[in-house]
């Protein structure tokens, strides 16, 4: 039975709040910005206003449509379900107005793009934000 213990602890850890670490928004250190307010993040991710204070165009990136991280991000940001976010984008896309954030397969892919393309932004778990990128927004600010 002893060999089951580590598995049991691992499962407990996965279920604990710590496994749902806080999401942070990152960008390239070359984007020329220090912080974003929650309203600014909402404007960028909902396509209302995509310009950074540094003058660069803001290009938000998303996780895949089925991902739990994506659902958590929008629920935390605007209190909306993914179905509501999808309907919102249908409104804008079929108005020929603006584009939804581009989806990238995983956190490493997101970090690679963000690190090399100033102006791009992505949300990742805090533990995934490494030295290549800069945290510009944390929930609870």
């Amino acid at each position, binding site marked *: 039975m002893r060999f089951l213990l580590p598995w049991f602890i691992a499962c407990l850890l996965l279920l604990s709040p710590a496994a749902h670490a806080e999401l942070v928004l990152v960008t390239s250190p070359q984007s020329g910005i220090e912080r974003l307010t929650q309203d600014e993040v909402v404007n960028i991710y909902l396509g209302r*206003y995509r310009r950074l204070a540094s003058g660069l*165009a*803001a290009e938000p990136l998303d996780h895949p449509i089925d991902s739990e991280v994506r659902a958590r991000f929008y629920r935390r940001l605007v209190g*909306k379900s993914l179905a509501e976010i*999808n309907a919102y984008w249908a409104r*804008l*896309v*079929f*108005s*020929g107005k603006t584009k939804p954030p581009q989806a990238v397969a995983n956190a490493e892919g997101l970090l690679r793009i963000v690190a090399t393309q100033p102006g791009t932004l992505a949300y990742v778990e805090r533990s995934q934000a490494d030295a290549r990128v800069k945290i510009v927004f944390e929930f609870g600010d």
Partner: protein
Amino acid sequence: MGKFILSLLLAGFAVGAARAETGAAESSLTLRGFGTLGLARSSSDHAEFVRDLSQLVGIKGGQWSGRIDSVLGLQANWEATPEIELVGQMVSRLHYDRSHNPELMWAFAKWEPDPRLTFRGGRIGADFMMLADSRLVGYSYLTVRPPTDFFGPLFFSHFDGADVSGTLPLGGGLVRGKLFAGKTQEKSAGTLGVWDTSGSPVGGLVLDYVTGPWNVRLNSARIRFAADMNVSALTTLLRANGGDAAADSLLTEGRTSRYLSLGVVYDHGPLLLQGMLNRIRHDSAAFQDSRTGYLLAAYRVGSVTPFIGVSRWKSQPHENLPVVVPGWLDEEYQRFVAGSKIDRTTYSLGARWDFRHHMALKFQLDAVRASPDTAFSFANVQPAWNGKTNVLTLTLDFVF
């Protein structure tokens, strides 16, 4: 102009597709679509319920029909450069001529030199809705159709022309302004037959303020009609009897109609509240002026969003209309100008169920309560019409 734009776009898409195949990173072609499979039934036998004034036939007599709400649309976006995009949209829906022939809804080039500024030229959407340019993408809104009492009179969905919009941060929110001008390319139909309003100049201004969960919108637009309706039977009679002023009052060519609306949306977490008011004024006595408004409240519970709404559409007769001397002719004239009288209220109850990604099922019950002499805004009205009908609608809305 429409054909010219279409061929231009097709050429653009052909080039775009070719480039997309070669994998050129600097341009991209996206094809998307949307649709609604709608089934609706209206309880009254004596008038047909229509979605808006562009529909010559509607639903009645408790028979299920898919004609008024079913829509299929395809859209292609070609991003030529990060600043320039070409957009084309074809839509099949119920037309003034009872057909579902595909129609070129949009075909425009968009230039965005800066995230704050956008220019568009070509065939573009008429921006009447609170949250979108198109009223046809059912998936993008909550109700089965935009409230008929409010949007019924706005049968224009696009125009050929240009618009420019700008966005600026202000006081913690965003101000968006848009100016548009162009010419309409649409027809409508009614008891007088088809009314071709193609070539009528339109123009207007939209102002938005968005802050947190609030969105306030002011919209002002005007149209100067390029053609008269088919009223010559009555105007000839009026002129033959010295009623030139009365005959002139019925003309629409060169006459202006003005639209003004104010809308407020509160959208926070699961709660959505929406209200709009509009006023339409017509220079021509062929249409009565009108005021409309609606309120909608919804609260999402999981993947289901129940909603309730109320809407009202009421017209006001023109004052100081000329008096025609032979009494019987004056009666004819008065009967004609009263033909566009509207006094109706709708109480709505429904729910939207987002059962999977990019698909939603909706049901809605509308209790339409109009005065018995409200014939305009319904189709094929019979003398026994009492102004009351209950409309039950089921839709499957999707985007792909």
